[in-house]
């Protein structure tokens, strides 16, 4: 759609601007303030420049957390995106009661408070009282997520797949719904294989929503806090201490405000940088 140039439109954006400034810029500036100062208590602060940033950038602990975080995000994206597309392709075609039931059930995990998701999986995978933990033990696997790092990872990844694949499914489903039936009929006449139907009709059509899905899943999994916190508390050891968990430990647990603030800023910048790439791709896709 062609848009007209109208500077007065700024007035309509103003309320949002004021509100978001209050809830975003003010706290952000506080963080910036902390990141360049040190304190010995008593509210006396003094300037330390970029010292905290250097410390954070060289911190072994944070490198490890970043590595774990990237690995986690990589794994869940690699599982959730293909699985989500696959499920969306297998959704019932004709509209009816069954489709509605499927949609509601699929959307359900998305509306469960995150700490409850954590709780659900905590009880579900405990070896003494949980169905999953108990069954795996009975099958002879040495599974105990509170002690074994691999088991903890397995639980967290399974939980995330359970929790968020639905989002990918719903997005792709919406994309697939928008394909006119004529496309499929044409494909049938050409005797196209189901793979080429997917490759040349469905995939290009859902590309736009797929980018949104990847963007949202990337952002949210990179900021994941509540669920692993409830299930494993970052353990065993530090095996599932992701960036957010580490950050909260540092800021609220140990009250190391300076390094925590510097850490926050770097963390935020990393997310923004990667998201910007996706966002640009999305805009370009829309403008075509």
């Amino acid at each position, binding site marked *: 759609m062609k848009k007209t140039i109208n500077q007065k439109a700024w007035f309509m954006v103003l309320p*949002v601007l004021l509100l978001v400034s209050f809830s975003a810029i003010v706290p952000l500036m506080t963080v910036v303030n902390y990141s360049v100062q040190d304190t010995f208590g008593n509210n006396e602060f003094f300037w330390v420049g970029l010292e905290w940033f250097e410390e954070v950038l060289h911190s072994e602990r944070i490198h490890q957390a970043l590595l774990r975080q990237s690995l986690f995000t990589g794994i869940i994206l690699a599982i959730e995106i293909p699985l989500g597309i696959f499920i969306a392709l297998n959704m019932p075609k004709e509209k009816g009661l069954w489709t509605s039931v499927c*949609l509601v059930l*699929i959307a359900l995990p998305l509306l*469960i408070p995150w700490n409850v998701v954590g709780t659900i999986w905590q009880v579900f995978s405990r070896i003494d009282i949980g169905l999953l933990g108990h069954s795996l033990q009975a099958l002879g696997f040495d599974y105990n997520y509170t002690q074994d790092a691999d088991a903890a990872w397995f639980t967290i990844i399974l939980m995330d797949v359970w929790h968020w694949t639905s989002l990918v499914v719903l997005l792709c489903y*919406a994309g697939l*719904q928008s394909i006119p039936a004529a496309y499929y009929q044409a494909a049938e006449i050409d005797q196209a294989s189901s793979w080429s139907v997917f490759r040349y009709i469905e995939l290009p059509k859902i590309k736009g929503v797929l980018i949104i899905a990847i963007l949202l899943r990337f952002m949210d999994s990179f900021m994941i*806090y509540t669920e692993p916190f409830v299930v494993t508390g970052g353990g065993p050891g530090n095996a599932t201490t992701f960036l957010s968990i580490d*950050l909260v430990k540092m*800021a609220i647990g140990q009250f190391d405000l300076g390094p925590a603030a510097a850490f926050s800023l770097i963390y935020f910048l990393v997310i923004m940088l990667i998201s910007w790439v996706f966002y640009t791709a999305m805009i370009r896709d829309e403008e075509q």
Partner: protein
Amino acid sequence: MIAYIVFLMLPIYWLINMSLKTNQEILSTFSLWPQQLSFENYRLIFTDSSWYNGYINSIIYVLMNTVISLTVALPAAYAFSRYRFIGDKHLFFWLLSNRMAPPAVFALPFFQLYSSVGLFDTHIAVALAHTLFNVPLAVWILEGFMRGVPREIDETAYIDGYGFFGFFRKIFMPLIASGVGVAAFFCFMFSWVELLLSRTLTSIEAKSIAATMTRTVSASGLDWGVLAAAGVLTIVPGALVIYFVRNHIAKGFALGRV
């Protein structure tokens, strides 16, 4: 398909199953369904004020947040969908960037900000804090839906003598009603499921159900039955909301962009 739905439902079933057992049964026997149905856990939640207040508090701030977010997002989304102005694209990305900010980054500054203006432990503090990620999302969704409404409708309305507000209320709003519904749904959802900020910003008066749950775990040891029952009850509002928007849900998840 069926296998996937079973996979989704199994953990939820297990939670419901546990919520209907007594603690003793949970810990002593392993069974796929409750041996003797017990509604004791639910009774406890509905009679203990520290529990049911959690639900009331959560619902209050979630509703506040939804109203605030939509009120400010509507005009902004209209501006983004209709006009080009200096810095519009940057502004839009800046808004979105707030959606990307990890809540962990903001927890501590929020705590200090709201304490210093005397809003700590009030519903409005949580509602305002949640606008951080809900307003950008609402703007994004609404913009997508508004873009689908042809410009000609605006122009015809102005020629017919509608003022801007008359047009917005009488003609434009009904056209994007489903978009507003979907945006409200998303605000509801993300505010309802968020824990970190709501826990940091409240202590007693406005304590959310999520916070009540995590604190109970640490305080009274492990009362699995009650915990499970509380969990089941937090799913109920979500399930109700989904039921109402089920026909728009697919389009809504695509942010109005298909």
